[in-house]
């Protein structure tokens, strides 16, 4: 049981590491875009092909990359987090918690 608690702790920490890393990437991605808008107008105005300025391409990319990051997280959680959690539950951990009524 002590071992299972230890493993849950490790899983807990791993989840926060992934969650905080991905959140930081989101912050860099979006506020990087906003910073470019605020401080480097010339760069965003550059036209790649007629009709597509770097600004428009990056704007669309912010949306697409945000979604890709959610995909990265869901894939990790489905593969590693859920598997480890199931293994822990099979070892009997959680029986003490599951009976607890939330206030």
């Amino acid at each position, binding site marked *: 049981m002590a071992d299972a608690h230890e493993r849950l702790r490790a899983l807990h920490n791993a989840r926060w590491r992934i969650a905080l890393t991905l959140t930081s990437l*989101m912050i860099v991605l979006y506020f990087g875009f*906003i910073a470019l*808008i605020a401080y480097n107008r010339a760069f965003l105005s550059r036209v790649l092909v007629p009709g597509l300025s770097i600004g428009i391409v990056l704007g*669309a990319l912010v949306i697409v990359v945000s979604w890709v990051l959610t995909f990265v997280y869901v894939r990790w959680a489905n593969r590693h987090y859920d598997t480890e959690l199931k293994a822990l539950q099979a070892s009997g*951990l959680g029986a003490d918690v599951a009976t607890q009524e939330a206030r």
Partner: protein
Amino acid sequence: MNTTAIGQTNVVAMVLFVIFIAITLGITYWAARRTSSTEHFYAAGRSISPGQNAFALAGDYMSAASFLGIAGLVSTTGFDGLIYSTGWLVGWPVVLFLIAEPLRNLGRYTFADVVALRLKQVPVRITAAFGTLATVLLYLIAQMVGAGGLIRLMFGLPYETAIVIVGAAMIAYVLFGGMLATTWVQIVKACLLLGGAFLLAMLVLARFHMNPAALFNAAAQKYGAGVLAPGKLVSNPLDAISLGMALMFGTAGLPHILMRFYTVKDAQAARTSVFYATGLIGFFYLLTFVLGFGAMVLVGPDAIKAIDKGGNMAAPLLAEFLGGTPLLGFIAAVAFATILAVVAGLTLSGAAALSHDLWVHVVRHGEASAQEQLRVARAATVVLGVIAVMLGITFKGQNVAYMVSLAFAIAASANFPALLLSIFWRRFTTAGAVTSMLFGSVATLLLIYLSPTIQVDILKHSSAWFPLKNPALLTIPMSFALGIVVSLVGARRHAGEHFGAMERQMHLGGAGD
């Protein structure tokens, strides 16, 4: 485009809208027979599938402000409007990474369940309910006033009649059908909105060889290359960053969004539903690129502003241009359905704060019978619905567009920091939580009042005491800092006491199953 059917009674819109009301009331009748407990009323009996919840989340989130507002902004300012398209999406990954799963495992109906889990119930519930109600009411005012104006413009109905129709339908959904009916109303609305936006975008692109670049290029040729680059809207970079913070972190503190995670069976389902929802919402905001520039090129900014100064009629005008009165009617009905669904979701989350947080846990100290809880929840729904109608009528003709970003600022500064700290910081205390939430709501409201948004734009003063249009840049970090400092200096005997159990429950679940 000198003649438009906007402002006249549109038969197609009327018929479609009546059909929408009939279908959603049918759903409500079906749901009412399955709503017999608070678990059903607040959380649809945890029976919603991840796919359904994804559409419902999208439906709750994509308000008329994003559909009509962003399309209007892009059509009149070009690239500047796109800043909003991206900003409205970036909160969703944050919801997924930090909030959705712990929330599902730790709470039952409201986000206050999570904050109060290992802290003192009464003070935490009161302040959390205050933050929830402030967010919900401001959001409701913006939606109701928008609905009244929209319906007057599109259907030719009087403003007050429109507000009362919206209020009555919304109360009916929530009162009788609870979360199950509200969820299905959101799903129907999300399908209509995504379908309508997709159809419009395809009709626009069909005129440009299905090539978005050709459309953007046509806009640049007609109105100058400036429409493809940042313009005047972001004259103050700090304003842009502040608004961005409100949108990014506010999404993770919106009560009606957070409440949705309780409607699925477990944390994994909550996770999957945010992933799909992010895809749906991202797709929608990509469509707004095409809709906005489509309206700019095909209708023209001047024609759009002639109908409505704010540009809100860009999408309907585009629909009329592309498909005549029938398509205008369809889009008008979609916009109306959009508002109706959002106000229903907001009202339900506000009712949960009043009944579950305030009545059950503060007044009754958690000792209310199941029947009493359900009765109070329904009474709270009616009260909030009536308040929403009254506020809608009170604010008639006012510029309330800022209230949505204000609601986001409060959600980001009052709800999000306390929620996040309670989930992952062992030493968070009751005093820390209460200070953080109270400061978040009060400081945001105060600074908005002192900001150029109110002082210059509305009260017509020459300057404002506080320089930023949106206070989130200041209030979010301060709300975190206060929560942390007050926890650290206060009595720390009990802090962290139940954190171990909470940590296990965060992964293994146990609440509300």
